[in-house]
């Protein structure tokens, strides 16, 4: 069974700082997704990573995928308050197309 783990679970950081969220998964996959969720809201798609070595950037967020290490990272550069949210990674099981979510990282940016 595919397991997806994120760390840290909670992250409090000051504006202007850099940090990285890690997503590890347990079985072979070639597709990984990052989502953002604001309190009481649904999931907003951030990045779709489809191959080993894929790197995508949008504003202050950059995501990468290493399929050999079964690891994805979401890097935050010069954090601003608007980035406060919960971030989820989700991985597709190579065999049955099942999309499994990680535990989530609750990010709080302190002014």
């Amino acid at each position, binding site marked *: 069974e595919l397991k997806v783990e994120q760390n840290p679970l909670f992250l409090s950081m000051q504006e202007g700082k850099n940090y990285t969220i890690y997503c590890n998964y347990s079985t072979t996959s070639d*597709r990984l997704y990052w989502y953002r969720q604001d309190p009481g809201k649904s999931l907003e798609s951030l990045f779709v990573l489809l191959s080993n070595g894929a790197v995508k950037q949008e504003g202050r967020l950059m995501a990468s995928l290493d399929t050999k290490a079964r690891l994805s990272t979401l890097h935050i550069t010069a954090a601003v308050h608007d980035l406060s949210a919960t971030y*989820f990674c989700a991985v597709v099981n190579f065999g049955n197309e099942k999309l499994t*979510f990680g535990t989530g990282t609750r990010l709080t940016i302190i002014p």
Partner: protein
Amino acid sequence: EAGVAQSPRYKIIEKRQSVAFWCNPISGHATLYWYQQILGQGPKLLIQFQNNGVVDDSQLPKDRFSAERLKGVDSTLKIQPAKLEDSAVYLCASSFDRGTFYGYTFGSGTRLTVV
């Protein structure tokens, strides 16, 4: 492009009652998912459809939950009878290409409270 539509937005029921949720995916999206998200946790897959066929329902509590997708478009998820632990947000998602390029689009969810 219209998004994934879900209704109702909120529902409060007493335990042992029944409830149904409705999802209308994006037009042309063959794959449809129902997820359960308990407060503070990540979404957990309940059932996956490809057109009107079930691909995976291994985590659906079949003694009380049922789902159908008639004609490969709209879908309904039913709980009967509800338990307190069913309190959660129920999210519907759809995909055009099984997520291979465009990913998955989520609806706004139905927040269920069982009292």
